[in-house]
């Protein structure tokens, strides 16, 4: 008789387990696909690395002509050429991304502090949605601003005839330059950083700010020593995100940096800033149509692999930077 009253729990547990397995399988599938993708990119990149060894990262000769040679060797039926020395590309990327992120970091920190603590209310209310809008604007639009405003500005006002003459034969200085790239990348990356930094600053418990003020520390020092210090994890996260976006920026930089894979030379003095360059991602875009030949493909995938590894290193660096902050903090 007891059996009549037994609640039938079996189907319930079954359907739950089924759901869990299905979802788990979905997650597994996604993970396997994505990891497989990374592995595949590295696999396709390997021939280029194996042919060049460490000199892949070195500097020997003109990158553009090397790429041309690689492409030509692929189309003709002869011996395949893989010789590639990508230092100018790496140097260009480092300069553009490093310069933009550094300038944007300093400016964004001050701007975020301003917005959260010192700006008048009306200005705050207008500024917040504007910052979020700017952070989500497609990068081509920033590229457009760069091409229409910055490049002519630099070309016409910052480059003199003398400097053009001094590098004639090697490169042409016409405004498509390192400076334009750094400037427009800074403008693109700054709103992202400002948004994340100000979120982090706003999350600082009010009690700590009040405690510091109540001890007779002025507001600037309070915000800096307590607020910014507490928001350090958010600052690290924002910087990592911004750098990742800057690294991957292909189209916009190809619009403003020029069409030559040149490594700007600091020894050139002021001309250094207006020399053209081509970061890694833009190089891929520039030669994407020639993907069909195997040596080209391996070379381009090798460049992509370098980008991928930099992004991974960046992520890891961000994680490592957050570790010491956990000791004294309430949360990360």
């Amino acid at each position, binding site marked *: 008789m007891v059996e009549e009253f037994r609640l039938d729990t079996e189907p*319930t547990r079954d*359907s*739950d387990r089924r*759901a*869990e397995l299905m*979802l*788990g399988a*979905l*997650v597994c599938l*996604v*993970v396997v696909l*994505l*990891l497989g*993708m990374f592995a*595949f*990119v590295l696999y*396709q990149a390997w021939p280029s690395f194996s042919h060049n060894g460490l000199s892949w990262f070195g500097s020997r000769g003109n990158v553009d002509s090397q790429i041309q040679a690689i492409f030509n060797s692929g189309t003709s039926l002869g011996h395949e050429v893989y010789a590639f020395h990508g230092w100018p590309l790496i140097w260009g990327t480092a300069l553009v991304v490093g310069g933009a992120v550094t300038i944007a970091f300093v*400016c964004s920190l*001050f*701007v975020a502090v*301003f917005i959260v603590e*010192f700006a008048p209310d009306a*200005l705050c209310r207008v*500024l917040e949605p*504007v910052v*979020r*809008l*700017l952070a*989500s*604007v*497609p990068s*081509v*639009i920033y590229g*457009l*601003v760069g091409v*229409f405003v910055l490049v002519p500005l630099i070309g016409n006002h910052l480059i003199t005839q003398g400097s053009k003459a001094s590098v004639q034969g090697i490169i042409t200085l016409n405004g498509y330059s390192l400076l334009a790239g750094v400037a427009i990348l800074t*403008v693109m990356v*700054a709103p992202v950083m400002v948004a994340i930094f100000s979120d982090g600053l706003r999350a600082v418990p009010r009690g700590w700010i009040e405690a510091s003020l109540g001890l007779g520390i*002025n507001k*600037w*020092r309070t915000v*800096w020593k307590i607020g910014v210090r507490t928001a350090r994890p958010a600052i690290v996260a924002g910087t*990592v*995100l911004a750098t*990742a976006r800057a690294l*991957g920026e*292909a*189209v916009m930089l190809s*619009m403003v940096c020029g069409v030559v894979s040149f490594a700007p030379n600091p020894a050139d003095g002021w001309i250094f800033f207006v020399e053209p360059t081509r970061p890694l*991602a833009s190089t*891929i*875009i520039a030669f994407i149509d020639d993907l069909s030949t195997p040596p080209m493909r391996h070379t*381009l*995938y090798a460049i*992509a692999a370098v980008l*991928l590894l930099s*992004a*991974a290193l*960046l*992520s890891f660096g961000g994680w490592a930077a957050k570790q010491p902050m956990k000791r004294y903090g309430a949360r990360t």
Partner: protein
Amino acid sequence: MSLLELPVSQPGPRAPRAAQSPPWRLIDRIGLAVAWLLGLLFCALAGALVLYFLVQGIKYVRPSLFLTNPSPGFTATATGGFLDPMLGTMLVSAIAMAIALPIGIGVAVWLSEYGRPAALARVAESTIEMIAGTPSIVLALFGILLFESPALGFLSRSSEGVVFGRSFFAAGAMLSLVALPLVVSNVREGLEAIPDHVREASYALGKTKFATTRRVLLPAARPSVLTGAMLGAGRVIGDTAIIVVLLGATLTFDRSGSVPLLSTLRGTGSTLTYYVFYNAPTGEGNQPTKAYAAAFVLLMIVLALNVGVDIATRRSRRLRWSS
């Protein structure tokens, strides 16, 4: 020491303070001044950018642009409008979100509600984060690998046994990877914000975990789902690298085959972002007026999405869970 034995002392004048800095030191004042300066400069820059595009857009946007297709030519009138690119933008984001939303919600639900074995959860989280940090050009290259393989040849045009590999399917699929991390993180945040007593109440009524998730949790997390979807859509709409590589770079729809919708999806085309890129001085078309007009339309779309995200987050803030 007993309080009874405390020495009695008379409150006296205080000892003079040690040398102290003034409450506002010079460096503090400088810092504050720099913050104000940079803040106002940022406002000015933001205002200038917005105004620049507003002005240029209004100057060059015409209704005819929305209705005509791009055509080869050299003058502004001959090159037509951006009807197909605009439709292309919507089509490609629809495909991308149609893939990213269900998968993203599924992954987020698994991570937040199940999450066993823990190793798989950690790996899944790290992978999603890696995708978030991967440059879209790398995703585009992988897309080429994937869609040029004969196995997936049906998703794009092929001729003489060589799979072209570039189509709306291809671009949409890779763009879904761009949107996926945003969907996952937002939905997960929304689900984790729901306090446990809601779940316990549902289990106490005899509902399975799956039914609880479907009927109680996901509807409650709807603002987060919307936010994730809109943020994802925003990034999808704004991406150019994947479009340039995987969409075949034909300005108008170039259908492949004869089945109505499928032929468009298998064919190539362009989006507004590609149209802007094409018409910039560095692109092949070089029609600045068209570029400005298309950029303006893009900005309006992004603005609308942002307003949508704002409304969704405001609604989610109203749903305050009392604990």
